[in-house]
């Protein structure tokens, strides 16, 4: 398996894995989406709320704020507190605001972390309040998995795609430029009396260029031995941390399978 990083910036990672089976890459993708544990606010105790938003709306908004940290926490399902929540599996954040002026915006950055978990993004508005309105609450963050609630999903967009193959028959091509016009991703260009592909991995295999070409000089197909994984994190984990965490989960699953096979009476 040969890995090449196409781009790694601003919460988005794109890498090509040569000779990686797409089913394997898809397994990694599904683990990223559903089985990498990250923290999110699970319980909110509201002491005072005189803002125009209902308690429920505020609790919902708090839940969707991506949180960082919490490496020392354990999953509540695996904790010895019987799913009640205890300092070993929960981290507390508090918020105490009284608006001093009208149209005052409360941002996620105002939440005070009492434990290891803190907001990954400080600029998310939680509520808008008028002078004198108060909001006092205590939020309990827990680790969780994406398969249980979308707030625990460490990614927004996450996709696996095959390697596109764009073949252009220079004998048939009359350089009409229809394919260049038609391509929604604008990846085709005319250079030295030939059509060239500028960024192969941006091709979505839509085949619009094929239909637009009158002499049928362009042909789109794909190679499923090579695939690209596109990961867009929400901020809880960095790109690299996330992919590595997914690999760890995969290894752990294999380890579990191995030990349960070995414990069979007709052991191999």
């Amino acid at each position, binding site marked *: 398996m040969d890995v090449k990083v196409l781009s790694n910036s*601003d919460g988005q990672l794109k890498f090509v894995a040569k000779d990686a089976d797409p089913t394997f890459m898809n397994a990694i993708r599904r683990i990223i989406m559903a089985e990498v544990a990250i923290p999110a606010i699970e319980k909110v105790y509201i002491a005072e709320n005189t803002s125009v938003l209902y308690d429920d*709306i505020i609790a919902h908004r708090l839940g*969707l704020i991506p949180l960082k940290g919490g490496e020392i926490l354990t999953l509540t399902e695996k904790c010895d507190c019987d799913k009640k929540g205890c300092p070993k599996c929960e981290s507390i954040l508090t918020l105490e605001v009284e608006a001093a002026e009208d149209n005052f915006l409360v941002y996620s950055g105002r939440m005070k972390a009492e434990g290891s978990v803190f907001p990954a993004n400080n600029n998310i508005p939680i509520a808008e309040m008028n002078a004198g309105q108060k909001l006092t609450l205590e939020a309990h963050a827990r680790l969780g998995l994406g398969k249980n609630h979308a707030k625990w999903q460490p*990614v927004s*967009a996450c996709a696996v795609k095959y390697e596109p193959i764009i073949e252009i028959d220079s004998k048939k091509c009359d350089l009409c430029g229809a394919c260049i016009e038609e391509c929604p991703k604008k990846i085709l260009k005319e250079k030295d009396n030939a059509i060239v592909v500028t960024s192969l991995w941006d091709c979505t295999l839509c085949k619009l260029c094929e239909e637009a070409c009158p002499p049928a000089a362009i042909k789109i197909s794909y190679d499923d031995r090579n695939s690209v994984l596109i990961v867009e994190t929400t901020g809880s984990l960095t790109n690299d941390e996330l992919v590595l965490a997914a690999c760890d989960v995969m290894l752990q699953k294999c380890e579990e399978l191995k030990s349960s096979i070995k414990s069979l009476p007709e052991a191999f």
Partner: protein
Amino acid sequence: MIIPVRCFTCGKVIADKWDEFKKEVAKGENPSKVLDSLGIKRYCCRRMFLSNVELIEESLKFYVRPKEEGKT
């Protein structure tokens, strides 16, 4: 009401970019260009900005301050 924290469809965090979007559009900038510069590529996320109405500001107008309660 108030800008949702995440895109309904894909789950991208969008609320943190609302202030910037609102400011630029109020200045008269083309919303499409502002969204491009904020890195909002998918149309599911773009409609979250374009279709949001800050109704919370309307309901805030009806807030009666406790000290004024006697007078009104």
